[in-house]
C-alpha cells in the first residue's frame, strides 16, 4: 500500500494535507481497507469549530462504524459533499477524491508532531 510522502499522518489513521493555513483531512488507505465498503459519512456543518482530538463525524462501512477525529484545531471551512451520495469514493480514492473535510487551522504548530509517511507505515 502506498502512503503519499507529501502528507502527514496520525495514529488514528487519518492524513492531513497542509496548504497555507488550511488542512485537508482524510483517512488512510489502510483505514479504508480495514473498514471495508464505506456506505455513509456523517459530517458536521461548515463553520463548526473543532479542537484537536474532538470527534467531528463518523464513517460507516457495512461492517462497522468509526469516529473521525479532528487532527488539528480550527474551523471546518469545507466538507466533501460528494461523499453524501457516493461514500465509496473514500475506498476508491482515499487521498484524492475521498478527502473528507478542510479545516482552517488556528494553530499550525499542531501538525509538527504528526507522522511522516514512512513513520506511519512502520506503525502499521
Amino acid at each position, binding site marked *: 500500500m502506498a502512503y503519499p510522502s507529501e502528507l502527514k499522518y496520525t495514529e488514528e489513521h487519518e492524513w492531513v494535507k497542509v496548504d497555507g493555513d488550511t488542512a485537508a483531512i482524510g483517512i488512510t488507505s489502510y483505514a479504508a481497507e480495514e473498514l*471495508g*465498503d464505506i*456506505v*455513509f459519512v*456523517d459530517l458536521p456543518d461548515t463553520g463548526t469549530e473543532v479542537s484537536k482530538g474532538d470527534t467531528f463525524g*463518523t464513517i*460507516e462501512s*457495512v*461492517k462497522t*462504524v468509526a469516529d473521525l477525529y479532528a487532527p488539528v484545531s480550527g474551523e471546518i471551512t469545507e466538507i466533501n459533499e460528494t461523499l453524501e451520495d457516493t*461514500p*465509496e469514493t473514500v*475506498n476508491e480514492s482515499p487521498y484524492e477524491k475521498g478527502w473528507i473535510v478542510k479545516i482552517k487551522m488556528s494553530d499550525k504548530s499542531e501538525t509538527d508532531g504528526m507522522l511522516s509517511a514512512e513513520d506511519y507505515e512502520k506503525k502499521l
Partner: protein
Amino acid sequence: MADQRTPLYDVHVEEGAKLVDFAGWDMPVQYESIIAEHEAVRRRAGVFDVSHMGRFRITGPGALKSIQHALSNDAESLGAGECHYSLLLTDDAGIADDLFVYSPRGTEDELLVVVNAANASKDLALLKARSIDAEWDDETPRTAMLALQGPEAETMLQPLTELDLPAIRLHRFAVGPLAGVEAMVSRTGYTGEDGFEIITAADDAVTLWKALREAGVAPCGLGARDVLRLEAAYPLWGHEIDENTRPADAGLSFACRKDGDSYVGGRAHREYLAAGPTKAVVGLVMNSRRMARQGAEVRISGKGMGKVTSGTFSPIRGAGIAMAHVDNPERKKLRERRAELVDTDCVCVQGKTEVPATFVPLPFYKRS
C-alpha cells in the same frame, strides 16, 4: 487468532481473504469487498466456506425417535434425500439453536444435523442428553461444507457433476461425484437465492473449491453472507433468536409440530403460541444510508419499544436495514403485530446517534 481452521484455510489466505475469529474459527469475512460479493451472489453465483458449522450424524435403532424428542419439526415426514429446518428448544421453548435435519435414506436409524458453529458443542451435549438407543458422531473435523449460492449456481455446477441437479428440488439432496470427489449436494441456503450446500470429505474440500472457482464462481465471505441473509430476513442465532426468544416471537412456529408433548419445549411452545407472543421480530428500513446496529434502542414516539437485533447496509434497498425485537403488549399474533407496525416511523438510538427508520414488511428482498 482463533484456534480452529477449516480445510480451506490455506486457500483463503491464497485468495487474499481478510480473516476474522468467528466462534473460535479463522473465517474469511471478505475477499475483495462485501458489496461486490453480495452482487456476485444476487446476480451470478458465489461460494462460501461454511465448514465451521457443526455436522453431527446420529445412527442406531433409536435415531429417529431421539431426533423427534430433541427437535421441534417432524422428522418422521422426511423421506430419503429430504431435509428440513428445525429448532432445538429449551424446556420452556427458548431457542437453543436452529438447524437443518437430513434423512439420507428415509430410515429410522440414521439422520444428519447441521448446526450453528457458535452453538456446536452446546448442541451436541443437548442432543446426546436427549437420545436413546442411538450414537452421535461429530463429523465436523473430517468433513467440509461449501455453500454455492446465486441464480447461476445450477448452471455453473451442472458441468461438474453427473447428478441431475434440476431433480434436486428445494430441501432435497443427493450424493454423488462432483468435480471428481464424493459429495452430498442439497438445494438449501441462507442467502435468499437459489443454490446448493455441499458437504464433502475434508481432504477433498480444496479440489471442490478450486473447481468451482475455475467454473467462474466468486469467493464470498461471512460479511456478504450476513448482508444476504438479512435482506432475506433469515434469523441468525444470537441476534434475532436466542434462548430468551421463542418460535412464536420470530415467525418460526411453522417448524414446530402440533403434538407439543412429543418433544422438548413443545408444550411450552404451544401454550405460548396460544396465549400470544410478548415480543415480535420485525423489519425496519432506515430513512438514509445510515445503519442501526445490534443493541440500538427502537423508539416509537419517544418511547423505548425494543432493540435492534441485526443491522446492515442493504445494497438492494440502497439504505440501512435492520431486524428488531419490539414489544407486543397486547400479545397479538405475530402477523397482526407486524402488520399494524408497517409504515410506522421510529428512531433507532445508539449512544448519541439517532437514525430515523420506518417499519416494513419482511423480507427486505425476495427473488423474482
